[in-house]
């Protein structure tokens, strides 16, 4: 059966997950690892407990282990698509408050839009736009993030005409 993007849009656009809290409070050690990967010696992050702005979604998630709903990936994987390979194309962040070690963060995710448009990777590529709202322990919004994700098939799946949905 041909992939019916209109039906998928009808079912999924506007879907929003409930607020889930991050597994742990904002901590020093993940901030140190973030700085290590970037050669970032900023003492505000390494010594004083300021959270790098781009880490707020990290601390608002349950993390990759034990298996759980990790950030937006499980949500995107539930949306029927011909392929299951993901690429994040665009991201936008807006911040409203600073975050420090000891804060608790949580997030909810919303499916904003779904489109089908072919790419060099796959003529049946599906584009999924999501919005994530991140709050602190007072339920004040500290940041909003939008993602544009491309879901595509492997070259082998394209060559054999395989579609998962």
């Amino acid at each position, binding site marked *: 059966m041909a992939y019916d993007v209109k039906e998928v849009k009808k079912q999924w656009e506007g879907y929003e997950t409930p607020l889930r809290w991050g597994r742990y409070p904002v901590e020093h050690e993940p901030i140190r690892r973030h700085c290590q990967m970037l050669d970032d010696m*900023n003492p505000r992050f390494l010594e004083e407990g300021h959270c790098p702005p*781009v880490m707020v979604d990290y601390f608002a998630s349950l993390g990759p282990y034990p298996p759980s709903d990790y950030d937006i990936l499980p949500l995107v994987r539930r949306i029927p698509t011909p392929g299951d390979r993901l690429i*994040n194309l665009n*991201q936008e962040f807006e911040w409203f408050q600073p975050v420090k070690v000891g804060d608790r963060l949580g997030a909810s995710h919303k499916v904003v839009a779904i489109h089908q448009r072919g790419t060099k990777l796959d003529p049946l590529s599906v584009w999924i736009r999501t919005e994530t709202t991140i709050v602190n322990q007072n339920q004040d919004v500290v940041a909003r993030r939008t993602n544009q994700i491309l879901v595509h098939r492997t070259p082998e799946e394209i060559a054999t005409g395989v579609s998962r949905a």
Partner: protein
Amino acid sequence: MSGRPRPPSPAWEDVREGEELKGFSLELTPTRMVAQVSGTQDFYPVHHDRDFARQAGHKDIFINTAFIRGCLCRVLTDWMGDDGFVKSLSFQMRRPNFVGETISVRGRVRKKGPDGRVDLELWIENAGEVTVPGTAAVILPARS
């Protein structure tokens, strides 16, 4: 403690439109690709498993979104010092940055706005090509 010297935050009044931010370069060595997984906890195999990446149609493993935005954000926080606030960041990932390549992360002041706002262009270059263009806004303190 250890940390680098801390230059004061630039005052909004002293910032010039067109001013270049001090950027930095990173070599995407295999060790840095491991640090990327450690730092982001992103275990999607396209960023660390060459066979998986190639099967998906890519040349090799490439850095992930959280690494890229961390680079762009570092250019801002290096420049704006302790008293600035990163208000927004937006970027497009036009082509992957692969293991073995070297990226340079750059920025430039685009426009000054009211209430301490400064709009900037940010980008990642790789072999002379802009692979990640972006924009950002920060709030800087006033001179007084």
